[in-house]
């Protein structure tokens, strides 16, 4: 890891020195040893803040939206999931490819922050759950590349089909059981919107949950409003979720948000054919285009 950290600092320094980009987005060490939050480096002397370790969870592509109207280029480090998010943002026309310098980092899978907190620095910290099922550990799009990617490709190739056993368990429940399950989960929601704020698919100029005048959703924190929020958020990222799992990681109330996302991904795969978001920039969104052969069962 140290080797990659050194390379990161070197390349970031070069990019800033030459003025190729006005800012480099990476990760730095946070308040605790198991946190590596995003870092926005715009001075050469700050490049040593950059790190690459087991906790660089944040999907950095999300922050490109903030630089949408800047004239200068932005450089950004991308793992596999960050690169999928980048492709998604391109598809959503939120960024322009030529305005971003992508520096790819092959990702062997990151470690679980919560476990790290309990087990301590010396403990045998397991991988984060979202990384266990990752099909794309290598960046799919990049201008520069740090590290070896071949090895990881082999690892990814041996991965089994996506594991939907958790979704299937929910599907097996009776509607009443299911309702009870989700009510219990979302009754905890404090509507901090961290899941939305961290999500690269959430790139609206004005989120519907902030449009208080229209009356989509009330401000009250109760089951009804929380569930409306949960379902609406899930449907708004449907077909565009790249499974980086950031929503669930950011949730302070431990709500299994990815379970909802995965259910929708599974449904889309079954109804419209296998589709992985953020792989092919030219792909048509399964829920985002009109097709003459669309079934018209209701007509």
């Amino acid at each position, binding site marked *: 890891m140290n080797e990659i950290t050194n390379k990161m600092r070197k390349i970031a320094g070069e990019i800033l020195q030459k003025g190729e980009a006005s800012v480099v987005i990476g990760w730095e060490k946070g308040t605790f040893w198991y946190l590596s939050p995003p870092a926005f480096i715009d001075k050469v002397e700050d490049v040593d803040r950059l790190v690459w370790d087991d906790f660089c969870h944040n999907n950095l592509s999300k922050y490109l939206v903030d630089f949408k*109207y800047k*004239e200068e280029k932005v450089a950004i480090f991308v793992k596999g999931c960050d690169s999928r998010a980048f492709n998604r943002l391109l598809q*959503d*026309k*939120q960024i322009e490819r030529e305005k971003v310098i992508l520096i790819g980092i092959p990702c062997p899978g990151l470690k679980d922050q919560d476990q790290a907190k309990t087990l301590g620095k010396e403990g045998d910290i397991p991988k984060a759950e979202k990384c266990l099922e990752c099909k794309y550990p290598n960046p799919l799009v990049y201008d520069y590349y740090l590290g070896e990617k071949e090895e990881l490709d082999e690892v990814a190739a041996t991965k089994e089909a996506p594991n939907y056993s958790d979704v299937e368990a929910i599907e097996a429940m009776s509607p009443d059981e299911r309702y009870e399950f989700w009510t219990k989960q979302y009754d905890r929601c404090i509507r901090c919107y961290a899941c939305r704020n961290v999500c690269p698919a959430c*790139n*609206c*100029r*004005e*989120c*519907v949950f902030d*449009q208080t005048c*229209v*009356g*989509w959703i009330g401000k009250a924190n109760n089951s009804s409003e929380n569930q409306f929020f949960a379902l609406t958020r899930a449907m*708004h990222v449907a077909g565009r979720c790249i499974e980086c799992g950031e929503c669930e990681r950011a949730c302070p109330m431990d709500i299994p948000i990815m379970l909802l996302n995965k259910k929708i991904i599974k449904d889309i795969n079954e109804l419209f054919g296998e589709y992985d978001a953020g792989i092919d920039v030219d792909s*048509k*969104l399964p*829920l*985002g*285009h*009109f097709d*003459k*052969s669309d079934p018209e069962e209701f*007509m």
Partner: protein
Amino acid sequence: MKRVGVFICHCGTNIAQAVDCEKVAQNAQAFPGVAFSTDYKYMCAEPGQDLIKKAISEHRLDRVVVASCSPRMHEPTFRKCLERAGLNPYLLEMANIREHCAWVHPDDKERATLKATELVRMAVAKVIQNEPLDRSTIPITKRALVIGGGIAGIQAALDIANAGHLVDIVEKEPSIGGRMAQIDKTFPTLDCSACILTPKMVEVANHPNVRLITYSEVEKVEGYVGNFEVTIRQKARSVDLSACTGCGLCTEKCPTKVPSEFEMEMMNRKAIYTPFPQAIPNKPVIDRENCRYFKTGKCGVCQKLCPAQAVDFTQEDQLVTERYGAIVVATGFDLFDDSVYGEYGYGRYKDVITGLHFERLVNASGPTMGKIKRPSDGQEPKNVVFIKCVGSRDEAKGKAYCSKTCCMYTAKHATLVREKIKDSNVYVFYMDVRTPGKGYEEFYTRTTDQYGAKYLRGRVSKIYEKGGKLIVRGEDTLLGRQIEIEADMVVLATAMVAKENAAELAQMIGFSYDQDNFYTEAHPKLAPVETHTAGVFLAGACQGPKDIPDSVAQASAAAVKVCGLLSKERMETEPTISIVNEAICAGCGMCVTVCPYKAIELKFIQERVDGKVINRRVASVNSGLCQGCGACTVACRSAALNLKHFTNEQILAEVDALCL
């Protein structure tokens, strides 16, 4: 505070028998905003409308809710009523308490009344949010397109052209004429089909307002009523129509023989050919799939011999784009594939033929010069068996519907056999004889009484060959016994089915079709030639099995609809279309790809951000193309798209009225 008037309609007893209308009117009085509420027997009738107008002025109403039937029929009626009373027509809301309530809950008056009350409550909540909307007008392209040059297409084009409008006919085949050109005689008068069709073909071809675009197909249809943009593929004819004199030398000398489609493959044509002697344009076309020159690169006899040097092997398909104000679809029908009935041996026995084969056999310009000879050995058949409903009225193997024309054309065929072969026997197996049409029953009676055709009620179970004869085994259900007939020829009254690519064309233009791929009219009784897509009309058998008189009548009806449209300089457009809130729009373009009408595109607007001027991408709705379907409003996550008259706020008000 808005002042809403609520008008509950009994629809005679349609609603009143299941819903306590008086009670609903009473309940509505308590809803917020309601200033007046009443019920009446027929709200759509003149006294009903007068009641609304009077109430608007007496109670100073500024919003109206009519609880009655589906808005599909009477929304325009009540909108006009509001207009006459001085209100904007879009300040009307309808609650459908007939289809959505009375008709689906006929047995529980108490709860049906409750549901009707709730439906009215929602409508009141919505109408308070309604905003006055103004219709705009757009110019109309004064030219019509007729797709299909059969009798229906020809008639529609002639009627439109005679009314003084320009019209183009696009015909897939090298000649206009369609199925009617293949038919020998027409029931019930036994006029020669060609004798009544060809004058019309000539008339339409020579009409100054008509342009024939033969050997061409519609490839793409964009735009909307008044302004369709149609791309037409003109297939390479390989013959220069302007140079060709139609002398026929090329056809005569062409060495390649191909079974003629027009003659139902009972005769050969050449690779360079005119489909039939009376074809229009009466100029040949090269069938490139079979032409020796195109297959081997050698030959070219036609080109060498052509005195006008009209043969051009280098011609290519051409795509032309034209604008039209209205479209008449008259693409006709195909025949059911009889080989599905293995027991009849169609395709296996040469002398088991379809009705259309028979038409050619009996036609003076057909393969047998009008002498009825059976295909296998050219002998004159003495015993001819007709089997009706082959493919029709058979849910198991064929189509559920009745093909409508077969009873009559079989009677015609029976008559013709008896007329031409004096010592012949004619047997007709039938399920029912259906002859609803002027002079039809009389014709049928003549067939049995004067011409002596023997009608046997029952189905044929098997046809097999024995000693050069076809043994037709069936049941006579009236006598309750098995019968076997030694037939020389069997004619199947084959079902009419939709064209093979019927669904494709409907999808291209954007209107609906039924489970059998026949095109769906807007209303089976009151809008039989309209489609649900404005400006697109139907004529002939593409809408369902039809005989010639019905096709012609429908074609003229469609023509009148087209003329009504083209007689205006401009037309009004519905204001119920999508609008973009540019402040919120993130420019992601999801609305662009979900729009079925290609009505949305992305544009750039200039804006100041952090003291700098930037170009920001936002969605933009073409008000002419938008049909108000609302797909974009659903796709837009941040609700930047909103459908006027069905705005997010209005729908939320309805939901809140029901749920809170």
